[in-house]
């Protein structure tokens, strides 16, 4: 079945440093979605990418979808303490459900 690998599992940065998390799928995806889960909270939808090579930005966050639609990345420029949390990618392969990566836990030292 479809598998989505996400790396790194953990990342600790100093405030102001950049951060990147990567997702790789074993199969071609119809779309990729990114979610953020604050400590003690629930996953919250951030964005969806659909097109090959697509790049989207949300303020300091940049999302990319690979040309082959099998990988994606989320890059945060100049991290802030408010960025703390776990970032999940979810790959759409079937019409019914996403396959989630295990997430990257980001901690930020002020």
């Amino acid at each position, binding site marked *: 079945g479809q598998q989505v690998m996400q790396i790194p599992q953990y990342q600790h940065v100093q405030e102001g440093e950049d951060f990147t998390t990567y997702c790789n799928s074993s199969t071609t995806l119809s779309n990729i979605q990114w979610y953020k889960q604050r400590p003690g909270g629930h*996953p919250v*939808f951030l964005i969806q990418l659909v097109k090959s090579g697509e790049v989207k930005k949300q303020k300091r966050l940049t999302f990319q979808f690979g040309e082959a639609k099998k990988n994606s990345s989320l890059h945060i420029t100049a991290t802030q303490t408010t960025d703390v949390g776990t970032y999940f990618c*979810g790959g759409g392969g079937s019409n*019914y*459900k*996403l396959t*989630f990566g295990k997430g990257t836990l980001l901690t930020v030292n002020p």
Partner: protein
Amino acid sequence: NAGVTQTPKFRILKIGQSMTLQCTQDMNHNYMYWYRQDPGMGLKLIYYSVGAGITDKGEVPNGYNVSRSTTEDFPLRLELAAPSQTSVYFCASSQGGGNYGYTFGSGTRLTVV
């Protein structure tokens, strides 16, 4: 709109007890999902439903049951609680399955002792 509402928020069960985790959404979404989240293990799909009257197993269905009698409600039933079911449970809904963003509930933190 309330979105996806889960009750209860916290629960402690004794081994062998049963309980139902409630999930209700008011967005008229056809697709609904139950996940469990263990520390460092990501989200594991328990059951999902593509519409009222239709349910299917996910990755880790053993020990759980679901029903979907209405579009709004998707309860998760634990029949004989075991310590391995200690986890955080999230319900989610989607307008169009894996092609649309999921809306998650705030979760139920379950401890089985």
